[in-house]
């Protein structure tokens, strides 16, 4: 745990250094493009997190084991946090570049629906009553939500689309320094995700233990 924590801190510092100082300034967009490293980092974590929720939910329905439910819940909460950051960083980037905070292009539409769906997932958990029901309903919903997303994306694309060109000073592919920065940021975000996930799972287990002790006390 300590090693993981140290590695995370180091990689975060490295990614801050890389994205603000080491990486060259993008020619067309200027400094604002630097926020894209975090934007991509957070969207990557959100993707991993929601895929984890999907798999853990299927495993939970198949096995009924509490550990899968804990994994799904923990991962969903972190996923919501990161997708929120994705939307915020994206908007900050979009304002000077596109001249608007928000537009309904396919990626943004899908991201927005994704964000809503997993907030609904958390609401569902909080209103579903007892543990088992909560876990079952949430698992069913998250499976439906996950398979809905590709359809949302296709539907939004059928509507219209503008895709951002993010990298490439002067239009020649991704420059190697930018690529390195990107990879460092991905690493930092992934490590942060793992650490948060571990903590969240631990917290849920402690809550379970507390419940158990309380029930014995009665």
């Amino acid at each position, binding site marked *: 745990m300590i090693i993981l924590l140290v590695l995370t801190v180091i990689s975060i510092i490295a990614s801050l250094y890389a994205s603000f100082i080491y990486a060259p300034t993008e020619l067309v967009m200027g400094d604002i493009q630097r926020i894209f490293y975090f934007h991509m980092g957070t969207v990557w974590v959100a993707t991993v997190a929601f895929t984890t929720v999907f798999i853990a939910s299927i495993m939970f329905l198949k096995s*009924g084991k*509490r550990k899968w439910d804990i994994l799904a819940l923990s991962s969903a909460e972190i996923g919501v946090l990161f997708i929120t950051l994705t939307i915020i960083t994206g908007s900050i980037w979009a304002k000077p570049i596109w001249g608007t905070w928000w537009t309904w292009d396919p990626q943004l539409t899908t991201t927005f629906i994704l964000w809503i769906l997993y907030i609904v997932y958390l609401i569902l958990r909080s209103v579903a009553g*007892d*543990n*088992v029901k909560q876990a079952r309903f949430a698992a069913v919903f998250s499976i439906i939500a996950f398979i809905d997303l590709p359809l949302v994306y296709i539907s939004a694309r059928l509507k219209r689309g503008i895709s951002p060109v993010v990298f490439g000073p002067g239009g020649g592919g991704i420059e190697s320094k930018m690529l390195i920065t990107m990879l460092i940021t991905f690493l930092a975000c992934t490590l942060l995700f793992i650490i948060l996930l571990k903590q969240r799972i631990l917290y849920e287990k402690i809550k*379970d*233990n507390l*419940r*158990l002790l309380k*029930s014995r006390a009665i």
Partner: protein
Amino acid sequence: MISVNNLQKTYGVISALKGLHFEISKGEFVLIFGPNGAGKSTLLKILSTILAPTEGEVYIDDINIYKNSHEIRSRIGFVSHEPFLYENLSALENLVFFAGLYNVDNPLNKAKEILETLQLDARENELVRNYSRGMKQRVALARALIHEPDILYLDEPFSGLDLLGTSIITNILKNLKAQGKTILMSTHSFDDCADLAHRILLLINGEIAFMTSDVNKDHFKQKYLELVSINN
């Protein structure tokens, strides 16, 4: 014969049933007695296959009830304190519907026959919504008996019934017992039906405190109070 082997049910971290072992022979009337929250309902739901246990097995005549749930369900009747009926349908329509689900031959005749034996035929076309609690409970019994099960589970069937309702249901149960049905009934008030029982199973905190064939009320009450006061 019903045999229950190491039956456990946990909700998250809380255990509702902690490893039950018991057997019930064919034609026996067993009363499950216990305070609220002892796990009586959970036990009956598991026995009737609508709830999966966390651990353990239940066999009816050496058939695993979860692996052959369809076969077992057509042998089980279940009455709860909720009637499990459609309020917007008449008693007859309800019974015909449920009879169809159990693949009963000639559902309409069968439904009429059962309503007649339970003396409900006079009002069979009225909506269940307009019935009194006692009437609903009788229709619920009819629903549970429509496929002629040889095993009947009753989960607090008397809750909310008046004296008349209680005595009608008690009489029906007496008949069913005479017909040789295996009956398992949970209750939290000992006075209902105690004299019908062959055996009493006392469930406290998800465990069998004891099982006795001494169905004398005073003996049981004394034993029960002793046990509960030790536990507290």
